[in-house]
């Protein structure tokens, strides 16, 4: 027997969240499989404030209970995020699975979370007491480890509106559908006045959390493409040295080789 609370508004949801020991439940695509014993759920799929996709000056704001199918139908969601969302599982899962759930599950394999990492997305977390905005990499601390208090809910993902136009995205799954990522890669590139302003690279499904090395990225920032080209091999070596990957459904060596191939391809794609 499933026990839980159905919230009709965000206010109600936050009150229940504060008063009871509940597991937030949006689409349930992970939680149904987990089928934890003796827990109470807080059902969020009917909370209107969490179901919206909005745009402000800086961000595309995706509500935590927005499903992947809904995002795919939205003109506001960046193409990079749509590409990742379109590769998640299969239509039935995408109809139910949500952005908040993908985050809340705390897995480095989460396909939408990879994009949030590479895009420097922020999260708006809310509780009865108020709200706070955190960077996704400060929120996502490790396997099943999230900076989320017992009375908090993820309300929105704030995805930068601009700067995600030039990208590489790759998902390596065990098959073409219904596949958990074995390696995923997202790279975002931007240049202004001939100088590189962004060369973000994020790796999913290869360690306890999504990997991104901003200090290594920084070595190429402000450089021209030609200057970056000269630094390319050192840059790749810095990644190779830094990346200590775990084994999972595939070996750590396989993951490493794929990550390095995809990173090199990303640079090549933008002339580096």
């Amino acid at each position, binding site marked *: 027997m499933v026990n839980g609370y159905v919230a009709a508004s965000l206010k109600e949801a936050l009150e229940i969240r504060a008063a009871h020991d509940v597991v937030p439940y949006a689409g349930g695509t992970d939680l149904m499989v987990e089928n934890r014993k003796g827990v109470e759920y807080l059902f969020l799929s009917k909370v209107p404030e969490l179901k919206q996709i909005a745009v402000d000056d800086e961000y595309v704001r995706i509500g935590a209970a927005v499903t992947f199918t809904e995002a795919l139908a939205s003109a506001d969601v960046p193409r990079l995020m749509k590409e990742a969302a379109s590769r998640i599982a*299969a239509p039935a899962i995408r109809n139910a699975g949500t952005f908040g759930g993908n985050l809340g599950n705390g897995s480095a394999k989460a396909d939408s979370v990879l994009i949030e990492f590479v895009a420097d997305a922020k999260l708006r977390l809310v509780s009865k007491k108020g709200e706070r905005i955190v960077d996704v990499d400060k929120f996502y601390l490790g396997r099943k480890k999230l900076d989320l208090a017992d009375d908090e809910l993820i309300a929105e993902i704030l995805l930068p509106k601009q700067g995600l136009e030039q990208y590489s995205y*790759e998902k*390596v799954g*065990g*098959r*073409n*559908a*219904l*596949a*958990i990522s074995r*390696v995923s890669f997202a790279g975002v590139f931007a240049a202004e006045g001939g100088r590189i302003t962004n060369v973000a690279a994020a790796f999913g499904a290869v360690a306890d959390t999504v990997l991104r090395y901003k200090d290594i990225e920084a070595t190429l920032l402000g450089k021209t493409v030609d200057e970056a080209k000269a630094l390319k091999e050192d840059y790749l070596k810095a990644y190779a040295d830094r990346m200590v990957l775990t084994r999972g*459904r*595939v*070996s750590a*060596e*396989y993951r490493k*080789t*794929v990550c390095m*191939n*995809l990173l090199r*391809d990303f640079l090549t794609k933008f002339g580096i």
Partner: protein
Amino acid sequence: MEKISQSVVKKDHATKVSGRSVYVADYPSEGVLCGKMLHAKVARAKVLSVEVPELPEGYFYVDASDVPGDNNVNIVLDDTPVYCRETVEYIGEPIAMLCGPDEKVVEQLRDACKVEYEELEPVIDLRTATEAFFDYRFGHGDVDKAFAEADKVYDEEFETGYQEQAYLETQGMMAEPEEGGRMFVHGSVQCAYYVHGAVMRALGCGPTGVHILQDVTGGGFGGKEAFPSILGCQVAVAAHKCQKPVRCVFDRREDMEYTSKRHPSLCRYKVAVKDGRVTAMDIDVIFNAGAYSTLSAVVLQRGIIAAPGIYNVPNLRVHGSAMKTNTSPCGAYRGFGAPQTFFAVEMMMDHIARDLGVDSLAFKEAHLVKQGDPTSTCGKYHFPVPIPAMIDEVDRACDYRKKRALYAKPQTGRYRRGIGMSMYFHGAGFTGSGERDLIKAVAKLRKYKDGTVEILASNGEIGQGVRTTFPKIVANELNLPLDKVYYDHPDTARVPDSGPTVASRSLMVVGELLRRAAIKLREQWVDGEEQEVEEHFKEPDFMIPFYIDKFEGDAYPTYAWAVNAIEVEIDTYTGVGKILGAYGSFDVGTPIDYNVVMGQMEGGFLQGIGYASIEKMDYDAKGRIRNNSFSDYLIPTTKDVPNMQCMLHVEKYPDGPYGAKGAGELPLVGAPGAYVEAVEQALGGVTLNHAPFTAEDTLAVITKEAI
């Protein structure tokens, strides 16, 4: 298309698609005890003691001491215990069953049992196994002379892995004591009479002391050929002790980890070539049987008979052994030993051709068997071998020859392409003289007063369509509408033994019995009367008798044939192989229902592609299978082979109904050979020797060879 081939709506279509079919897990739980298995946690150990928690009233602990008859399950040999003996021989071996009304309580009790083991050294690695359950040798010609006179000798080893049947419905059986002491056992089974024999023995009763019903069965693929005999005995013993109905349904992890899978194999081929032709093969086939022998004898027989492929090999020596290891016993899976050896021989021929600088297809064509040629066991290919025409069909469908030549040229860039082809047979029916000497199939037709006709046979509907195709044959001969002829799930209390639902035999062998029975009934037909006719199996006159001790004679009366081509595109950055197209020409004789046969061909081909590419299952150093769920053991989806083209080539078999031959297993067998050959080509002509060949394997080759 002939009238008999025209598709009809399957008889079980409506109940299945509407979710109304009742599977063994669907019977109400009221009054039924739930059984949960206490599985061994180590690969080999003496079981010193089991500390069972105090059992509430109505809960039971059932083990070997409760077996009223013989604690040995009758399969081919009798070495598989109902519940473990003094030792356990693999991780997962059933030590006991906990039974009771509440599933959660039963689970808790099971988990609270403390087993004390004295661990023994297990044999995990097939290469270090020394105990052979079965060891066979056969051959012909002068192999040593041929090797001595050879221009060149090739020596290679090939390996294949496990494959899990992944049927939708897991293993599940239920036993109900009936008034008068008879035991009723029913569940998800392929072979009701196998279960019947096994349960009789475990309970120590006569043939009328038990009866077995096949419930609606959610797929078998061989996985429910022998295993239900074991589980059937276990629930029957439990029901006998508890004197209540007991049901045991495996969860997916239990099923994937502990029930029978396809035998991993290790094949060594030594081949002598003179003047550009194969003059001899010296073949060593090793199958990993697992801890008990179950079906390994017959799986191995089929495997080694197919070892030289469909090529004329004038001098042949074959040695096959099924080795004991302390792992889950392997068993039947669609193809039954043949996919392993066909993979090896197809790769071997390909490798020799490449070394000789000739095209692999041309090399294979030059060695093809044809009608009248001897088989590997000195039998005869009595009927035309349609392979050359089927090669042309596949070539036309995918431009094989042109692509093969194109992709052989040096390729650059991230994505590289290759195409490969395999050709093979599947021997229809039981191996050797099994149909004549062991099965002796009997089938009946019962006509009721209202003119409806019931088919009485023991072949189970497992998705392959016998509930539809059997009635089609009978209705056709009796000139009756199809709804006047029906075939229910077999209950051994009321149907004769027409043999097991295995070996692609049901339609060809039992279908023909039913056709003859229908003719007999037509000739005797009297309106308004209840009538019954019976037919017995008769071996066709042309057969050269088979001797299993010498592996000599006709191993099969006829063969279903196939040619497969698979085109891949390899992503050299990730190792992922994208299947651009899969093409198959299949000769199963006359299709008795076009849609049913095409469903079999497409589904089987896809299973074969999974076996070739992504379905990897292995055990660790302790003998434990780790990837025991559908998120860790991946089978292909339709998205993985978006372009599949199956074609039927009809070479009729005169002794099958309307020319039909065995169909069920054929489509799975050839995919690994075609797929891996395609990967080899895409990688610039490397030599690959194992299947499945995964993305990880591919990337390792790319790294090593600096491709």
